[in-house]
């Protein structure tokens, strides 16, 4: 047999039909659904008299626009349009008989955190969701695609997705990371190196010693942002860490089925001489703690750098850089570490897991945030929140002056009341720094949880290594 990449192997195991021109129906093992991109899809099913083909493989959770303050079970505490979307998900989940975690359930949270936490996401699976950060699930060696609402309807009705195969790209991070450097710095640095369109048309497999050394949570952070690099999906081959993470989760297999699953999962790696259409290699030791300065996730620089000028770029990027600098209100040449911030947001499907909260709490322990600054922590799920309470992290955050919120997407995309005001500058652990992403006119700097915590203490973008 010819050598295969991990992507080739998962793909081959899921092709339900292939047309002469190579258009395939890819069978979908898990379909995750949230309130914002699904109402029109369920409505489409109703209008055509279709049903959900595999309700057992379909999991729904409201996350994007739910408030993160107490009392949210009561629709009166939501804006009317949000309440309508949440109610629609509620009705659709019950009517079509799919798995469902309403806001009143402690297991509710951001869809990409709930999936792995509950053991829905397992190695070798195909996973889709009407959300671009579905790439997160690739950390398990699952092929995970973000899809649009028409495709959500297609998967609901047929349990398949129409796809053509993507190309294979290998991103290798060699060696060890330096102290203070995290998974977030890896993933941002890769996008900085490849650009936001560098992965277009590819499925990326991340590998190398620095990736192997990451925990499952760190690997999810890396894969989460594969989409920011333009890739259709990001993958990491499963290993003992992966299997350990999955073992005993509510929806993971048990007993003989676990053994059978393990037999297959252990074959899920790229063969030595597999063909790669593109290869990127970064040295782990070259990666620094980074922040974004502009309005595209590719606008990445080490925290020790200065704000660039538009002249530093070529082609279409010159105009884009100038527009970013104007929007961000930054002067070229200013050291990034002198840029003052107004808000700190720790959360999102990129960095809202327990290890992220631990990393931030470690920096904040026994200290107070800068006066006048607004700081919030939004755990990625109700279970993450409960665990953080138990470990005493919640107290550290509260004592440091942070708001301790309920689980959801929150200020990652600001569809709920958690929003930046025009001109407000935020140190955020989320994944997008687009214009207006965190609120109209809001300015976002992306970074790791430890870096965001450091910024909360000083009121400026800060090199976390100076506080370690």
């Amino acid at each position, binding site marked *: 047999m010819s050598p295969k990449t991990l992507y080739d192997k998962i793909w081959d195991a899921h092709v339900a039909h292939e047309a002469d021109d190579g258009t395939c129906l890819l069978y979908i093992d898990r379909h995750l659904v949230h309130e914002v991109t699904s109402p029109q899809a369920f409505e489409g099913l109703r209008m055509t008299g279709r049903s959900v083909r595999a309700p057992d493989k379909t999991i729904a959770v409201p996350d994007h626009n739910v408030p993160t303050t107490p009392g949210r079970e009561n629709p009166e505490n939501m804006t009317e349009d949000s309440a*309508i979307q949440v109610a629609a998900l509620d009705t659709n989940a019950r009517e079509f008989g799919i798995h469902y975690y309403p806001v009143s359930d402690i297991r509710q949270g951001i869809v990409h955190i709930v999936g792995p936490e509950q053991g829905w996401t397992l190695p070798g699976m195909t996973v889709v969701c009407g959300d671009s950060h579905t790439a997160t699930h690739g950390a398990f060696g699952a092929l995970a695609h973000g899809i649009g609402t028409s495709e959500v309807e297609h998967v609901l009705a047929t349990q398949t997705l129409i796809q053509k195969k993507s190309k294979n790209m290998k991103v290798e991070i060699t060696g060890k990371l330096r102290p203070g450097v995290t998974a977030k710095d890896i993933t941002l640095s890769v996008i900085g190196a490849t650009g936001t369109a560098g992965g*277009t048309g590819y499925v990326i497999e991340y590998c190398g010693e620095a990736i192997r050394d990451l925990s499952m949570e760190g690997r999810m952070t890396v894969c989460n942002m594969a989409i920011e690099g*333009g890739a259709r999906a990001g993958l990491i081959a499963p290993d003992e860490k992966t299997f350990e993470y999955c073992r005993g989760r509510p929806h993971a297999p048990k007993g003989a089925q676990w053994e059978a699953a393990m037999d297959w999962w252990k074959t899920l790696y790229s063969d030595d001489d597999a063909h790669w259409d593109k290869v990127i290699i970064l040295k782990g030791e070259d990666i620094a703690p980074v922040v974004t300065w502009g309005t595209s996730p590719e606008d990445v620089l080490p925290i020790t750098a200065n704000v660039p000028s538009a002249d530093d770029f070529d082609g279409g990027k010159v105009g884009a850089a100038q527009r970013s600098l104007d929007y961000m209100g930054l002067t070229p040449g200013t050291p990034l570490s002198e840029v003052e911030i107004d808000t700190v947001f720790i959360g999102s499907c990129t960095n809202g897991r327990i290890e992220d909260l631990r990393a931030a709490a470690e920096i904040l322990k026994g200290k107070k945030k800068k006066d006048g600054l607004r700081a919030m922590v939004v755990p990625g799920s109700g279970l993450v929140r409960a665990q953080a309470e138990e470990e005493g992290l919640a107290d550290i955050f509260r004592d440091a002056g942070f708001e301790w919120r309920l689980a959801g997407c929150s200020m990652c995309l600001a569809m709920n009341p958690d929003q930046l005001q025009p001109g407000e500058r935020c140190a955020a652990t989320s994944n997008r720094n*687009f*214009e207006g992403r965190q609120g109209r006119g809001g300015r976002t700097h992306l970074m790791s949880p430890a870096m965001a915590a450091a910024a909360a203490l000083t009121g400026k973008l800060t090199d976390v290594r100076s506080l370690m």
Partner: protein
Amino acid sequence: MDQFTTLTGIAAPMPLINIDTDMIIPKQFLKTIKRSGLGVNLFDEMRYDDDGNEIPDFVLNQDAYRKAEIIVAGDNFGCGSSREHAPWAIKDFGIRCVIAPSFADIFYNNCFKNGILPIALPQEQVDVLMKDAEKGANARMSIDLDAQTITTSDGESFSFEVDAFKKHCLMNGLDDIGLTMEKAASIDSFESAASQARPWV
């Protein structure tokens, strides 16, 4: 789904790279449970000021481009979220075709599901089309999906690539789900084989 065969119309120039889905339709408009009515909020934050007044500089607020049916844009158009609200808003405004050097993957796919034709061309050709678009309302571009050509107002013509299956669906306004359901037997047999091989799924 709406068919797309040929189109002759006004093209709006948007010479900006990385036009993301948050620019195309900001999140406050994602709270709808319908597909229609999003056109007035297309490019909302670039198009209106804080008081909801039109920003005169913005291309779609200029008289020449109010009836644009084509957008010519920079690299990596539609990057960001999977929100299909982006093509819904574009379509609802009246745009049926977007031309750029490259597109983000999910957005590109979403266009075809909504009767919009995204065309990727080399930068030099997009530059020519951008110049043509900048001439305003009298310069109309023509697109012929069957022949896979774009013709500028000056008669200069470029050919473009499009996936044969996607082209077929778009030209005939076909519903993907209906087409897939015709292959139900294949899905059934895959499903039963897979449930033997991987019963834990």
